[in-house]
């Protein structure tokens, strides 16, 4: 009997594909964000409010993943930006292969911002790199403020925590302070925003965060055809 050393990442192949996607996004100056949360935390509604706030012609697109139905794509398609549904047919997460397939036919040089709305699940999507610049985890106040401790992998990997549905705070025993503290325990330095997609409170700081992140990935082109790509135009 012999033992052969492997020292190989399990998701090697899919990680390689994710790295390729990341390189493509970077090359085109696209900010790709992977939105993750449990089901019903408000990913789609936040995207609706976000798309609604963009002027026509904004170079933004959405890939939205669900196990079944194209309900989310239909909700998001009304804003005039490219939207595609990825139906996983049972899989509890999106992976880089699905993203690559879904992007086929889209001209990446026409995009500045790509949202990927993952399947609602606080566990599995944490293990899959989609080539995104950052994961954004959304936690609604109708869930528990101890979720970061219960699902540390996700909160550890996400760069931004969005505490959503803050309009419901008067009705639920959710402590924003504990949620923040728990998130920072798992992920020190994590950025945290609070917002309500219903009332619009806090949406401005979300937009600012997006704008800053977009600016950070845009290739520095002091002159040339890309000058008309200011985020607010």
């Amino acid at each position, binding site marked *: 009997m012999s033992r*052969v050393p*492997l020292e190989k990442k399990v*998701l090697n192949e899919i990680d390689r594909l994710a790295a390729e996607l990341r390189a493509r996004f970077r090359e085109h100056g696209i900010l790709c964000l992977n939105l993750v949360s449990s089901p019903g935390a408000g990913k789609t509604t936040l995207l609706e409010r976000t798309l609604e706030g963009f002027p026509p012609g904004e170079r933004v697109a959405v890939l939205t993943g669900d196990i079944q139905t194209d309900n989310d794509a239909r909700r998001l398609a009304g804003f005039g930006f490219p939207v595609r549904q990825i139906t996983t047919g049972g899989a509890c997460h999106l992976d880089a292969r699905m993203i690559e397939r879904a992007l086929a036919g889209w001209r990446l040089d026409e995009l500045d911002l790509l949202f990927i709305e993952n399947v609602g699940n606080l566990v599995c999507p944490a293990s899959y790199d989609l080539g995104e610049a950052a994961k954004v985890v959304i936690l609604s106040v109708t869930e528990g403020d101890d979720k970061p401790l219960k699902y540390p992998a996700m909160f550890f990997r996400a760069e931004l925590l969005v505490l959503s549905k803050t309009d419901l705070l008067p009705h639920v025993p959710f402590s924003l302070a504990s949620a923040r503290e728990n998130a920072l325990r798992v992920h*020190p330095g994590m950025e945290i925003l609070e917002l309500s997609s219903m009332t619009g409170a806090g949406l401005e700081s979300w937009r600012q965060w997006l704008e800053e992140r977009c600016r950070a990935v845009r290739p520095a082109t002091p002159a040339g055809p890309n000058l008309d790509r200011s985020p607010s135009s």
Partner: protein
Amino acid sequence: MHELSIASAILEAVQGEAVRRPGARLLKVGLRVGELAGVEPEALSFCFDSLVRGTELEPLTLEIETRPRRQLCPECGRTFRVVDYSIVCPDCGAAGTRCIGGNELEMVYLELEET
């Protein structure tokens, strides 16, 4: 339940190794899983065994070594295991420690019998 797709990825890689060693009987694959990897070892073993059963890969088994989250203190150089999420350095009290382990999802070895 993404453990099934992870089990399939492991078997794919193992089969890739098997092609390079024709005639070898595969016995065991060793896996390292960090506590931050988001993978449940018991579910993974269950999926792995289910995929192997009744195939030419039998009697291949999976051995999982779990790894705790570990931090490095840049102030005093101490590395320590994280207990109850506290990432403050137990020696010097520095808060800005860096994660250096616990993220692993790696195949470590393949045990086989050359025939």
